[in-house]
């Protein structure tokens, strides 16, 4: 049985339908890449999983639990950790305050996050708004880890970052996979990087799952057809 299962998910923004039938299955400890061109429904799918967007039809289960009736904070407490698109920290809190504001008991604490991102420890008392984009992304990832999730969702975590910083983020993601066995659902456009970390891949097109399978089977033909790379 899958850890996270989405079956036939349909969702709307007001009268506009964004998702027309998303299917996704992620096993415990697996890393799944969620791919697709811009506007194909990747972020909407993440929002549905986190309960930030209600789905109109379909089934959404996490660790055997139906998430459909849960408000977002309860879904997060069930074990979902979100690193949202656009490095959304709490800008007027310090780095440390950002991290402890939402901390929950578990293996991830400030020391462990600092070990993953030493730069955050160096900037501990600095306001989050004064951090560089890359540091804010590290903080956003660290904040999600401090909630001790069982499934971490990364929505375009490396978008708009300098190549060096992107490498740091990817290195952290690889460490998370190898050292923690945490399940990850990663939305990103970098096929090369995703090939190194992901076990599974799901490709969306116009709000529908059009391809899913092992990452190793994402051939250049598949990439050409659905991702335009």
């Amino acid at each position: 049985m899958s850890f996270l299962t989405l079956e036939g998910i349909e969702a709307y923004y007001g009268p506009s339908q964004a998702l027309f039938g998303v299917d996704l299955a992620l096993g415990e400890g697996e890393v799944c890449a969620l791919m697709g061109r811009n506007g194909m429904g990747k972020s909407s799918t993440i929002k549905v999983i986190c309960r930030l967007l209600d789905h109109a039809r379909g089934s959404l289960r996490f660790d055997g639990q139906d998430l459909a009736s849960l408000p977002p904070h309860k879904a997060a407490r069930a074990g979902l950790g979100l690193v949202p698109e656009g490095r959304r920290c709490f800008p007027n809190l310090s780095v440390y305050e950002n991290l402890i504001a939402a901390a929950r008991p578990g293996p991830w604490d400030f020391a462990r996050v600092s070990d993953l991102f030493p730069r955050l420890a160096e900037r501990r008392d600095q306001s989050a708004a004064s951090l560089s984009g890359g540091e804010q992304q590290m903080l956003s990832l660290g904040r999600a880890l401090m909630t001790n999730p069982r499934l971490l969702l990364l929505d375009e975590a490396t978008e708009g970052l300098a190549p060096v910083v992107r490498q740091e983020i990817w290195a952290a993601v690889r460490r998370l996979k190898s050292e923690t066995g945490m399940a990850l659902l990663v939305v990103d456009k970098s096929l090369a990087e995703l090939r190194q970390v992901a076990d599974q891949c799901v490709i969306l097109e116009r709000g529908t799952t059009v391809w899913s399978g092992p990452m190793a089977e994402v051939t250049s033909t598949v990439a050409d057809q659905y991702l335009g790379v």
Partner: protein
Amino acid sequence: MIREPHINTALFLLLPVTAGVAWLLDEPFIITLTTKVAILALAGVGLNIALGLGGLVSLGHAAFFGIGGYAMGILASHAQSYVPLMEVPFLIEGTKSMPVIWLVAVIAGGLAALAIGALSLRTSGVYFIMITLAFGQMLYYFAISWPAYGGEDGLSIYVRNGFPGLNTLDPVQFFGLAFAALAFVLFLAGRLAAAPFGLALCAARQNAERVETVGLSPYRLRLLAFVISGAITALAGALFADLNRFVSPTMLSWQMSGEIMIFVILGGVGRLYGPVAGAALFILLEHILGGLSDFWHIYLGLLLLLVVLFARGGMIGSLVRRELAHD
């Protein structure tokens, strides 16, 4: 540049030093004014938890201030007349013990804030302001039409309530009590702001959706803050009623809510010692300008306008010249 902790220390010392000097000069009126500052600052610290940390613009905080006042008035008046508060199903008598009155005020204020907050916090923005105002006015008109406790005329208590080991009729000893309550609540509010709860409350003010994605309910955070805020404001109300030995519906009026908010805005919204600075300035202006003109509120309004337009961090903010980290 002046650092905020230095200003806070100066403000903290300002009240006991003023009361001490007034005691040495045998000026009990100044001690009473300083006591009033401490009590109104306490109400402001209460509001500041909701307004400064949680961003909840409540125009109904006088409800809690008045509930604290009436808790004192009702208990003390029954003790004064030796008539029990109720006999069935069990006997409840009045009391003239300040610790008991404070406890009742805090519980009553907290419960009222829980009920009002549970409904009001389902709204936001201008609707929240209006619904808190409506609840405040409901209680105001209820007090006016409650003849058992003085109705519109209010309720006088002839002897100040007692505190074990102290002569509360001595202005300096009563000041000591009010100041101790303020110091305790300032300590509590400081710890609260730095605790994960206070940080999450600040975060919810900045972006509620983001807070939800880390597993926290903004509604619950705000409700708890509102309850703590209401309980502290009620404690201030009980002390204020004891200071004047009088409680009336005015304590519940929207003007009172506005005044408490003015202390917070003048001193600096979200700054721990903002209400202390604001209440001190307010009482100073009331005392000095009030002696010169009956229309001193015009000058207060002008000052408030200047602070809102040019010193958004309030008096403390303009002295330290930096935005509050939690703004």
